[in-house]
């Protein structure tokens, strides 16, 4: 059986845990509970077992702990479509990833697509295209593109 380690990274409160829980357990909670450290879950896509590391989000006081990324086969960069700063911060977060584990297959989730105050346009996501990352407008609440996001990453990992 194939196994792949995937890390969910991004700013705090962008919905990394919500996306993971929707994907792994098909549940969603409106309540915001910040992740401390890392939570590891497993799920399957076909015959591939995914070990999903839901890493605590980056905030103004603490950067992402790059130790968690060691051995990752793929990265899901998550940002919140209603907070433009979380899209801008992806650049810095990617630097941390790259320095620690090099360039690994990556996809981007523009999360919270169900909310009305969506602020993302093509100009803001141009960087993602430059990097060649597949980008998905996701909604953990409604399940929009959640499975497609992970399937795309697994396919990129090969």
């Amino acid at each position, binding site marked *: 059986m194939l196994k792949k*380690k995937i890390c969910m990274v991004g700013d*705090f409160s962008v919905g990394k845990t919500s996306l993971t829980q929707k994907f792994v357990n098909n549940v969603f909670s409106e309540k915001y509970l*910040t992740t*401390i450290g*890392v939570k*590891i879950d497993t799920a399957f896509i076909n015959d591939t077992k995914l070990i999903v590391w839901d890493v605590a989000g980056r905030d*103004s006081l603490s950067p992402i702990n790059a*130790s968690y990324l*060691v051995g990752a086969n793929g990265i899901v960069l998550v940002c919140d479509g209603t907070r433009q700063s979380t899209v801008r911060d992806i650049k810095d977060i990617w630097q941390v990833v790259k320095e620690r584990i090099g360039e690994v297959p990556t996809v981007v989730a523009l999360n919270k697509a169900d909310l009305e105050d969506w602020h993302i346009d093509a100009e803001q996501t141009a960087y993602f295209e430059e990097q060649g990352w597949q980008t998905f407008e996701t909604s953990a609440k409604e399940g929009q593109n959640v499975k497609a996001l992970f399937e795309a990453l697994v396919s990129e990992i090969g």
Partner: protein
Amino acid sequence: MVETNLQQHINQQLFEKLELAYFCVDQSMRVIDASENLESYGYTGVITGANADDCVDFMFGLDAHTELDLPLVESPSGKKVSVSLLPGSTFLTVLISNASVQADQRQLLQQKANENELLVEQQIILMKQLETASEMLEQKNVQLEEASRLQTSFLSGVSHEFRTPLTSIMGYTNLVKQALESASDESSENDKVQHLRAVQRSSKHLLSLVENLLDHGKLDSDEIVVRPKATDLAEIFNDVKLLLKPLSDAKHIDFFVELDFEQPMMVVTDDSRLRQCLINLLGNAIKFTDSGSVRLTAVLSNDFLKVEVSDTGPGISEENLAKIKLPFWQAADTGKTGTGLGLTITERIIELMGGELEISSVLSSGTQVNFEIPAPQLNATLEPIAAVAPSFKQAKILLAEDDYDIADLIVMMLSERGYQVSHVDNGELALNALESQEFDFVLMDIHMPIMTGYDVLAELQAKGNTTPVAIMSASTVESDRAKAEQLGCFDYLIKPVEIDDVIRVMNLALEQ
């Protein structure tokens, strides 16, 4: 021996206090040793010979040579643990310690910090929205002030525009009245005719102002309608010339009218709309030209009428040229008053007539306004009214009109031409009259007491009475005309009605 026992005791105490658990793996990541208490963290199946990443998820992707600290990892038991990977020369030791207390404390602080940061972010967004709203309000305020300024300027313009022809009407009427009352009337008949012509011109001017005001209300609702009909083009231009010449004379500027077609020239166009446009354009040209000339040229070629109005006025800046067709807009620095509606309405009418109004201007040199509209030429000429169908003069006409001044005027004018006219002042009397006597033609107002013109039309329609009825109404609203037409009226004349138009419609009805 004692030392070894002591060391073991201490180690035991430390392991218990920190709830330390461990396992060791060889270079191929197979478990070679494991503490029994691993299960308290939910790590089961960690037995000698097992693959580490099969029984402990976080071990997948790691190797036996890399030293690594993984703080606050959620173990399968739900407890947060700190994991330390300590590579040795032949095996890797993985130490796991309970970090629940640290995690709980961190959770509380981090949760608050993140929630606060989210609040700050939301505050920033709200502040930006407030700033935007405030800017929009400020813009709206400026727009409202501008609208208020335009309204004031519009009212003052309307007042001025109306007072000018009214002054002329009142003055000349007074002159004629005095001449008629005076025993020693020294003014000639010719003078009186000239005075009355001035009154007529000013009345028409007043009417065109009213039409502009009414038409403005229809701009948004697309209710302005053009009604092409056979008309003498030369008569329109000559009328306009006579109407506006006194204005140019009063300003001592030349007013040239050059017509490149024969007179009379019968074409199909909406005469009153064309007249309205020419008055608006020439009125503007004369108003803004203080010296030099205003020139109107008209060419009829291949069933198209080309008109140009040029003046030697102050010209219009590029900036103002862009705004000049906006409703109510008037240049602030000209010192001229007006309604600011003429050009807006003219542009729309020209558009409806199938043309386009073009304005070009050079500051300090003057302005040219052009348009070209279809005007299909007719071979026939309009017969003079007085010569039309003398036999119809015996026709019996019923006039239903509640305004006695208007009724008297129409009765007098029709009687002078030999028609037999009966007058009633409400709809019910009109209906009674039509039931008890025979009439050849009915001329009827809409808004009358007891029964309106619409009610009478409906009753006549219901009773199958086919006497032709022409409506006279002050309403220019298209739906009113449509309603009357639906109820079978023969024609719809808009007040003030010209007696010649009444007779033309009447003769047409009687011919049928």
